[in-house]
């Protein structure tokens, strides 16, 4: 280090920081988002089961609600703390973003804090109030949990939408002087990308929670546990997710058309369109080599039709912007194709269940359906991650689209990558722990509570 000119050393440190900071953010966000989805979608399933148990006296439904609550208690705790780390990281890793725009896009986070309070409070009462409340009151106390969860998700995603579609301040002045004036935090929150992004994410949360839960019971059904408990445990979450999936496909199309009009460079990267042209074909599958698609299936004029509703419409390509403002196409397109492919796979399963249900009021008879349903949980998580990769990497090199680059936002503090290495270890251990605890909680009922040390020691402490 000593022999390097100081400026060069500083540049090298900044580049090392940028890569480490982006990896750390991707790891933390990619990890948290799975729990966040379960946090939003799972309470709905619990309350549905509890409501069914209450209304019909169905013991299996009541039992499901009880066991899911135990699982949810763990997931919520881990989700809450893994979300907290993100608000630390926004400042630790991206002080340039926070110092410049903190007051522009901060409002939704503050409101999300209120929603999070409500969620944590009612969850506390819901988890620990069962003895004190009547079953009906217990159900009612649970109702605010999914509502607050959806609200939290909505407000946080408005902030991400703002990064894609900055609004709520004087953009021209910022471009000219780098000063942020004319701040309108409500306009920032309700930026043009908010409606489509928040809808897409909340639906994704329900889909992930539903298919992940259902896949656990699909495994049970495949192993011959064809009792009411397993069938209901499969059907409730699967039916909810299946009902939402077709809506999500429509919303996804809305999102792509929104990009065509508002963030054309991202759409060009999603579809690997190099050159601006009219009547652009839609390519499905294949791989991207040197920015061009090989071995894909081409539907003539397909992209022009999908993006603009006109087979001869002009679709903007990556050549609209200088080379250093283009996102890495291979990653973005692969992630996008993966998400879309999983979306249609899930839609196929949903239709299959729907058809069987209409005909016979029962699950499809073929075991292939259950194998598909088993795969649907992990597949939905893959689609979720792929979707986030597509939208976040597709915005590069910008942290605030068109206004602030990631290298302007990243911290200048030395040694960021060591913090990242530490977090890799923490998240690895945490993943192993979560999986083993969840496996423990999903073992056959009832758990051997009589041998639980806490239970015995509680008895010991009674005078």
């Amino acid at each position: 280090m000593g022999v390097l000119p100081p400026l060069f050393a500083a540049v090298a440190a900044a580049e090392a920081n940028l890569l480490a900071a982006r990896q750390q953010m991707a790891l933390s966000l990619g990890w948290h988002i799975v729990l966040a989805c379960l946090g939003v979608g799972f309470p709905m399933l619990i309350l549905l089961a509890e409501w069914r148990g209450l209304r019909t006296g169905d013991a299996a439904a009541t039992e499901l609600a009880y066991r899911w609550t135990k699982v949810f208690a763990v997931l919520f705790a881990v989700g809450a703390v893994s979300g907290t780390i993100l608000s630390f990281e926004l400042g630790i890793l991206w002080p340039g973003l926070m110092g410049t725009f903190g007051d522009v896009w901060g409002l939704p986070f503050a409101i999300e804090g209120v929603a999070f309070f409500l969620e944590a409070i009612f969850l506390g009462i819901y988890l620990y109030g069962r003895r004190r409340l009547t079953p009906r009151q217990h159900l009612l106390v649970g109702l605010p949990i999914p509502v607050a969860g959806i609200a939290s998700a909505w407000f946080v995603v408005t902030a991400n939408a703002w990064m894609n579609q900055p609004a709520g301040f004087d953009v021209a002045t910022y471009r000219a002087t780098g000063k942020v004036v004319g701040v309108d935090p409500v306009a920032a929150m309700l930026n043009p990308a908010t409606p489509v992004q928040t809808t897409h994410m909340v639906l994704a949360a329900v889909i992930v929670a539903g298919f992940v839960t259902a896949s656990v019971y699909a495994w049970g059904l495949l192993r011959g546990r064809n009792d009411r408990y397993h069938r209901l445990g499969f059907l409730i979450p699967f039916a909810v997710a299946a009902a939402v999936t077709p809506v999500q496909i429509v919303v996804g199309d809305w999102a792509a058309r929104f990009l065509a009009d508002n963030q054309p460079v991202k759409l060009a990267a999603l579809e690997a369109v190099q050159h601006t042209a009219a009547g652009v074909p839609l390519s499905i599958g294949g791989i991207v080599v040197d920015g061009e698609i090989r071995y894909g299936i081409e539907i003539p004029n397909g992209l022009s039709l999908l993006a603009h509703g006109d087979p001869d419409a002009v679709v903007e390509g990556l050549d609209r912007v200088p080379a250093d403002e283009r996102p890495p196409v291979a990653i973005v397109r692969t992630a996008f194709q993966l998400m879309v492919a999983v979306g249609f796979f899930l839609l196929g399963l949903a239709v299959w269940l729907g058809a069987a249900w209409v005909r016979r009021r029962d699950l499809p008879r073929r075991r292939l359906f259950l194998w598909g349903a088993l795969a649907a949980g992990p597949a939905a998580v893959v689609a979720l991650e792929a979707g986030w990769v597509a939208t976040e990497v597709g915005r590069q090199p910008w942290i605030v689209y068109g206004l602030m680059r990631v290298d302007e936002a990243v911290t200048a503090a030395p040694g960021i990558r060591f913090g990242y290495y530490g977090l890799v270890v923490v998240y690895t251990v945490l993943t192993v722990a979560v999986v083993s605890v969840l496996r423990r909680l999903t073992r056959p009922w009832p758990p051997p509570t009589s041998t639980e040390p806490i239970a015995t020691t509680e008895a010991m402490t009674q005078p």
Partner: protein
Amino acid sequence: MTLAEMVLTVMFLGGTLYALFGGADFGAGVWDLLAGRTRAGAPERALIERAIGPVWEANHVWLIFALVVLWSGFPRAFAAVMATLYLPLTAAAVGIILRGSAFAFRKAVVPVVTKRTFGAAFALSSLLTPFFLGTVVGAVASGRVAADAASPGGSPPDVVGSWWNPTSVLGGTMAVLVCAYLAATYLTADADRQDLAELAERFRRRALGTGVVTGVVALAGIAVLARDAPRLYEGLTGRAAPLLVASAAGALGSFSLLVRRRYRPARYSAAVAVGAVLWGWAVGQYPYLLVDRLTIAQAAGSRATLVAMAVSLGVGAVLFVPALVALLVLAERGELTEAIPPSTTH
């Protein structure tokens, strides 16, 4: 009072509540660490688990509340603090994630070995997190966070010396002691309410012992501040002196109440002692947000955002404060307990 000061006051109120409630949850983890071997420490660990189980997540939200109000209302100060103090803050964040997860895991698992591992992670992170958060307070209070630390072209911050210095170490030590003191006092009352006389006696002794140690460290800390954080020292001994007196009175009050085994009033008195010293810090460094570097007025972000924050937090408070009070009252009365399974016939 300016609008910025009003929003900052709300943020600091959130921070105080985090210290009084979340801090006690951390302190409970410290006592969990010191409860002894698996069998001998089991009754104490069970009491701690019952005490913090229903409330710790809601208490934790105060931290997020304070963070987001700071970054939205005072973005420059937030960015400078986070960038400069990333080492203790990353450590605290890791502590928070391990503490919360391990606590939830410990409740969920049965085998003694895994329970012990998660318990150790929970307890150790309960000790480290308040320490690192305390060093952050010390860094700000002793003027070691540069206002331009995060701005493009600003000099890279001193990422070690900013939090490894006399005031920060004092801040970290005091944070751990205060958390332990609050927790011991609260747990004494919890044990007493549950008619666990022997446990109440144990935590009473601990509260008294920690109280003495905390008092000694606090007095010695005044000498540290006089040399290492002159601006804060000046404020504390001047404008903020009444708050320090109130804190001392609260501490002595809780001490004598504990001696006389009046546990419930003792916890309120202890809370006054801790709350007053926090506000003493705030008043002591007024009008600075980052001591010697950035005043509240300089740090304040857009007025429109401050107004929007004040309005939305005001409306939000109407929604969540009654619910939060209900949760805390139910927990305090011992009405929130683990559920029994609905059926075991499956």
